[in-house]
């Protein structure tokens, strides 16, 4: 296979362009997609780049189809992915649910836009609930919420690997800003960095005669009996929960002596990081905590940060109206720390917004 990134090199790209390059470097075979802002350029760049490296693309008739074709391709042993946003994410919940049920190693990029419904094509963090727990299922998914273009590159490569290693649907949760802005990053060949690319393999059409050479491969997503489904979901839950400690990722600093911990995810954590530094410079003891994985959630780590700091307040700042707060509350049930919120649905949050909020509640 033609090497995508010969030598580690700096680049100045949009987030969407970064995803296309990282998917190539991760060895993705094919992308299925349907146009929707703000992820369109993932498709545009992929369709320009993919033929040069012998990779494929199919534009389907809608997002339901794009999701299901990814489900089909991974069963054939192909490293396949899609990218979508907003209403497209809604339509893809059916295939994403099937991927949970059948343990399909699909990878999907979600570039959040505003809602409800078609909302705006611009920025928001309003697809947290949908991406973590959407669909008629239990949220057996792995969701990485990125903050920089370097992370977009790193976690796209990691996302494919994790999907194929653990066989759960895996997501990179970005947003309109990350999709469209340009910033510097370093592109590299994962194997040169010692990152082993997980091998892919077909899940169906295996060699050998069923019953003689091998057991039948049941990739079932419909069950006739209530009790049967009960057994399956209980088993899936146990399998998912078992790997949680291996998957959880988070960032934390300045929590040791913090009076207030600022909790953010994704691009808002950049503003939170600046805010904590500025507040510290003014003598206000603020701490920084950021889940990188929203599913599974670093609940134990957040509880420990609260405990060791003895902080009296937790400020949750998000570009949505409580989706991240609800996710957090269910994970740290029982904690008595007072929760303050900064909801800015559909608009960006800058350090200034967080600093002002902290000062108003301390």
């Amino acid at each position, binding site marked *: 296979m033609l090497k995508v990134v010969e030598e580690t090199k700096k680049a*100045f790209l949009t987030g969407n362009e970064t995803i296309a390059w990282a998917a190539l470097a991760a060895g993705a075979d094919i992308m299925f997609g349907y146009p929707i*802002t*703000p992820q369109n350029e993932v498709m545009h760049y992929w369709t320009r780049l993919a033929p040069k490296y012998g990779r494929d693309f199919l534009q389907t008739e809608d997002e339901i189809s794009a999701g299901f074709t990814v489900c089909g391709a991974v069963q054939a042993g192909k490293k396949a992915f899609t990218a979508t946003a907003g209403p497209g994410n809604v339509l893809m919940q059916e295939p994403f649910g099937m991927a949970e049920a059948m343990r399909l190693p699909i990878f999907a990029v979600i570039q959040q836009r505003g809602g409800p419904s078609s909302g*705006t*094509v*611009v920025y928001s963090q309003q697809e947290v609930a949908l991406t973590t727990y959407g669909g008629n299922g239990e949220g057996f998914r792995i969701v990485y919420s990125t903050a920089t273009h370097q992370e977009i590159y790193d976690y796209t490569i990691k996302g494919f690997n994790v999907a194929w290693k653990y066989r759960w649907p895996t997501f990179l949760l970005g947003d*309109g*800003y990350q999709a*469209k*802005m*340009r*910033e*510097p990053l370093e592109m590299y060949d994962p194997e040169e960095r010692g990152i082993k690319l997980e091998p892919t393999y077909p899940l169906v059409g295996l060699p050998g005669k069923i019953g003689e050479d091998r057991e039948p491969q049941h990739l079932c997503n419909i069950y006739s009996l209530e009790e049967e489904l009960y057994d399956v979901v209980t088993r899936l839950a146990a399998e998912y929960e078992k790997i949680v400690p291996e998957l959880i990722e988070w960032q934390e600093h300045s929590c040791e002596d913090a009076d207030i911990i600022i909790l953010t995810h994704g*691009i*808002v954590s*950049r*503003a939170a*990081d*600046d805010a904590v530094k500025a507040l510290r410079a003014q003598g206000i003891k603020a701490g920084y905590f950021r889940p990188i994985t929203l599913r599974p959630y670093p609940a134990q780590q957040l509880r420990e940060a609260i405990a060791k700091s003895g902080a009296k307040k937790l400020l949750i700042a998000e570009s949505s109206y409580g989706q991240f707060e609800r996710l957090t509350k269910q994970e740290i049930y029982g904690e008595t720390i007072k929760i303050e919120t900064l909801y800015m649905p559909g608009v*960006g*949050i*800058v*350090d*200034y*917004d967080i600093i002002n909020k902290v000062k108003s509640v301390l």
Partner: protein
Amino acid sequence: MALVRIALAGEGGQGVQSVAEILAEAAYNENKQAIYIPNFGLEQRGGVSIAFIQVSDSRIGAPKFNKADVVIAMSHRAVARTATYSDKNTLFVYDDGFDVDPEDLPKEAKQIIAMPAINTANNELHPRVFNIIIMGAVIGLTNVVSFEAAKEALEHKLGSKFEKNPDLRELNFKALEIGKQLAENALKEGVAR
């Protein structure tokens, strides 16, 4: 270099986003941290097009900002649209080629500057290089990139056109130089508020 935040705004087709991209790339080429993000919503179809640029020596936080160090409003409508990005530390620049309602100007600014970019482009150079005059003005106002880096970035972006018509290279570089001078002169003479 401390963080510099720039908002460029104008009509679709004026080249706002192209200039922003070239400037950000020039800063990146000088090993600075740089972020460029357009406003990409439906408003850009028939609305005012805005580019947000940030340049710094150290890591940059949020991609957008509430208040800019420099705002350049390149069209009549852009003045009112971008007044919100101005505070007491902002250099607010607009073109003197249109009658601006004083109500539309920002309430707070370090300095409000009227600059004859459109007239200069139309009368002394070519309407096509209006946006390059603006690019030169950004450099004159902020020094976010060196003049040489800006020329290199232009060469990188427009090199193939320059090859076909070397006069274009001269025209663009001249526009860049004139824009820089206009800004430096305006800074000295500008109406302080």
